């Protein structure tokens, strides 16, 4: 099943809960970052619409609805 490039599993059950929280926190932070780029209109970043306007062209060209 495992290919030549696979390693044997090294999964520590004790570390699973800690990893779960780390993963959840990471996903939350990265989702927030993507939100700030793609959708924020100053409500979260508290920068008015400065960041929104600065990244305006990126939003259009990444295909996100802008206005």
């Amino acid at each position: 099943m495992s290919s030549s490039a696979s390693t044997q599993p090294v999964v520590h059950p004790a570390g699973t809960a800690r990893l779960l929280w780390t993963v959840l926190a990471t996903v939350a932070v990265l989702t927030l970052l993507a939100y700030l780029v793609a959708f924020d209109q100053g409500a979260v970043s508290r920068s008015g619409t400065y960041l929104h306007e600065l990244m305006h062209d990126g939003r259009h060209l990444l295909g996100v609805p802008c206005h």
Partner: protein
Amino acid sequence: MPLTTTAPPFFAVLVRGLLAGLVAGLLAGTFAYVAGEPRVEAAIAIEEAATHAEPAAGAHDHEDALVSRSGQRGGLFLATGLFGAAMGGLLATAYVLLSRRRRSYDDGRSGLSLAGAALLGAVIVPFLKYPANPPAVGDPATINQRTVTYLLMVVLGLVAVWAGSLGYRSVGAQAPAWQRAAAAVGGFLLVAAVSYVVMPSFQEVPANFPAALLWDFRLASLGTQVVLWTGIGLLFAALMHREWRRRSGTDALRST
């Protein structure tokens, strides 16, 4: 032959995902700058002409001088770089979760499949339903509905890819390849087609907006995302391969 390499810690994988995403984002920004910016400029010129013709209808906020046009062109790289880093980090997280579920870490190659899945599910499927719009296209009154339905379509696209992989695995490995492929395509198309039909459509392209400009802009936008996800997949797999090699040692690699 089982290797004794230990799995890389989560943060080692995450850092590589973030780095791959940042570099891929800057590459995508370069593509967007060259292929897309002339179209954005042309669309803004049309928008401004329309605003001056009938000021009451022109409620767009592009002209407020908060950020100049050259600032927005530079901000393009900030946007794609940060967005790329976020997507690379999410890809790295998905890679770790997938590897743990399979109880086997590979040298990064499953990162390629994940990037392909993301490109198909989170970009191409939503794009076919809600293609990117340049400035001057889109009714500001529906921006909230369009944002929500777009995000929903991203989720549905990812569900469609997941349904495809379920279909693939539901057919036994002994079955001929075409049957597994047909099951994968069937699962994907079923979810994608139902989503496409059920989700609301928005037809908000002004009648006098040049069709060729719209097409060129949309192609540039899709190309930006293709560069982004291709870059994330290849760079992440390359970085993980290097890390895997470093961990397993070149001797173990030679013996396989």
